């Protein structure tokens, strides 16, 4: 049996459109048109113990909705979910003691007290023993390097420090399954890497099964062997990340920084110019040509200061897959 089993899972939201303006508001007092949104549409997948799965998709694809259903916050409209053998919908206490969730966009720590005060509260909620609490706190705070912010009011923490504390709050009870919804959102590159490294180490140490959403390719590349991609509520890819990249990420991105502003026309002979800001630009180049093109750029007469080769952003890859699957349909 898999740790997470999802079969035919769907979520249809019912809502009323609010018309703009005073007249519209008055109208809607008497007559409200019901609208439906199939946020998650008949998805199925299994996740095995110890896996880190990247759950990807553009804004509004249905990622958060799915994670909410897996953790029992939302009721599904159809389909079955089993997490650790439990039906999350029943919200059993035993189940709640075995999984954790972090929502990057929603904080669970009270802002006016210190992280430690918050943790003590969560410790009481989950009935963690004093010894367990102490050893887990020691371990986590060392791994995350937050020993010296534990007694600072949460509202005075930086975003990165707070996110690390949010992670701790969800890990105090040593969950078997962890849902991470954009745990690196808004963090700078360094903090992002810290959090990422921590997740990797933690998974390695505890064999926790992790499902993670992120809009950053670096997170996914570092952490996930397997990715599930969702778009308009439907799964459009479920498989190895390496296969995804070799099949769909047909291009790479060359990012250059120059000493003096370069004309956009001068760059267009190397590839498709995606983002142009004078001394900074990104050029899209077919994967097999990328090394050759990069060396051409360096040896050209352009005043190049720095050059960097990147994978295509996730959202672009998704667009490619989406276009291809749609083409097949027709």
């Amino acid at each position, binding site marked *: 049996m898999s740790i997470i089993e999802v079969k035919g899972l769907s979520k249809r939201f019912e809502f009323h459109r609010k018309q703009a303006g005073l007249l519209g508001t008055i109208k809607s007092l008497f007559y409200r048109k019901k609208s439906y949104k199939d946020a998650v549409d008949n998805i199925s997948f299994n996740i095995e113990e110890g896996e880190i799965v990247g759950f990807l998709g553009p804004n509004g694809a249905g990622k958060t909705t799915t994670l909410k259903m897996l953790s029992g916050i939302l009721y599904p409209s159809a389909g079955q979910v089993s997490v650790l053998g439990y039906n999350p919908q029943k919200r059993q*206490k035993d189940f709640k003691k075995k999984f954790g969730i972090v929502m990057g966009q929603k904080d*669970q720590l009270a802002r006016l007290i210190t992280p430690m*005060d918050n943790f*003590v*509260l969560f410790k*009481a*909620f989950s*009935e963690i023993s004093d010894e367990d609490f102490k050893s887990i706190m020691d371990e986590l705070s060392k791994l995350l390097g937050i020993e010296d912010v534990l007694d600072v009011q949460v509202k005075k923490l930086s975003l990165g420090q707070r996110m690390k504390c949010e992670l701790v709050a969800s890990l105090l009870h040593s969950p078997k399954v962890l849902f991470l919804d954009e745990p690196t959102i808004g963090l700078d590159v360094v903090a992002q890497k810290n959090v990422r490294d921590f997740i990797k180490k933690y998974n390695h140490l505890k064999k926790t099964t992790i499902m993670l959403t992120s809009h950053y390719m670096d997170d996914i590349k570092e952490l996930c062997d397997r990715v599930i991609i969702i778009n308009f509520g439907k799964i459009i890819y479920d498989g190895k990340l390496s296969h995804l990249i070799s099949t769909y990420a047909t291009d790479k991105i060359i990012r250059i920084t120059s000493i003096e502003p370069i004309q956009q026309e001068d760059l267009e002979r190397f590839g498709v110019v995606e983002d142009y800001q004078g001394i900074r630009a990104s050029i899209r180049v077919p994967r097999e040509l990328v090394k050759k093109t990069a060396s051409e750029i360096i040896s050209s007469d352009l005043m190049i200061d720095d050059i960097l080769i990147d994978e295509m952003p996730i959202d672009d890859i998704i667009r490619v897959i989406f276009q291809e699957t749609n083409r097949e349909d027709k």
Partner: protein
Amino acid sequence: MLKHIKQGIVIIKTAWLRNLNYRFTIIMYRVGEITELLVLILMWTAIYSGGAGVIKGFTLNEMVTYVLIGNLCSLAVRNFLPAYVSRDIVEGRLSMFLVRPIPYIKYIFFNELGRSFLVTLMSLLTQVMVILFFLDKFIFNGNIVYILLIIAMIFLAFVIELLIGFLIGAIAFWTDETEALQLTIDRIKRFFSGGYFPLSLLPVTLATAGIYLPFAYSFYFPAQLYLKKISVHDGLIGLGVQVIWIIILAGILHMVWKKGLKKYEASGS
């Protein structure tokens, strides 16, 4: 049992830690309370100075004592649950509790217990100061039976107010706009609690209604008991009415919360 107490103590302690950040707010609230109290006392003094020695059986001194004692009781039982609960629902913070192995209701009750304990202590202090100021008009009642009865009544009233507060907050499951409703209900509660004037000044039907509603037990009843205008016997009946209300309200809350959660689970936030 021990487990619940342990959890409760941690929640209460955390509530204190959090509320100690609001020192300025807490002090400003007390200023507001004192002002309101002084206005009421001045008003009654003015009314009585018109020549009436006794109004519906109240002398000026009794009226002033009524206001002082009633106010003290109503402060002791007051809570901010409507605002907390509705905010947690509207802003989706409730989700964070749905994934924790403790019922939200249990958490928020303990939290409010902790918060109001602190505030009540402060209120008591300021109220005692006001009472000292009006000492010449204040009537003493040191009868232990009455005092115990009043304490029991206030405790039950505290529970009733928590249940009502929670119910009002739960309205947020169905609409985002709960503020005006909260204010209106507050006014009605205040009126029927005898907070504006003793219920016995009202027409009989309204006064009787007031006695069977749960609100009078946080102001009018304990104040009248203190003045010995209500007998111990009637006071005990009052406790019975309170217990019945607690059962009814707990039942309603159970149903409403279940229904609300269903709705929340459907739309989530």
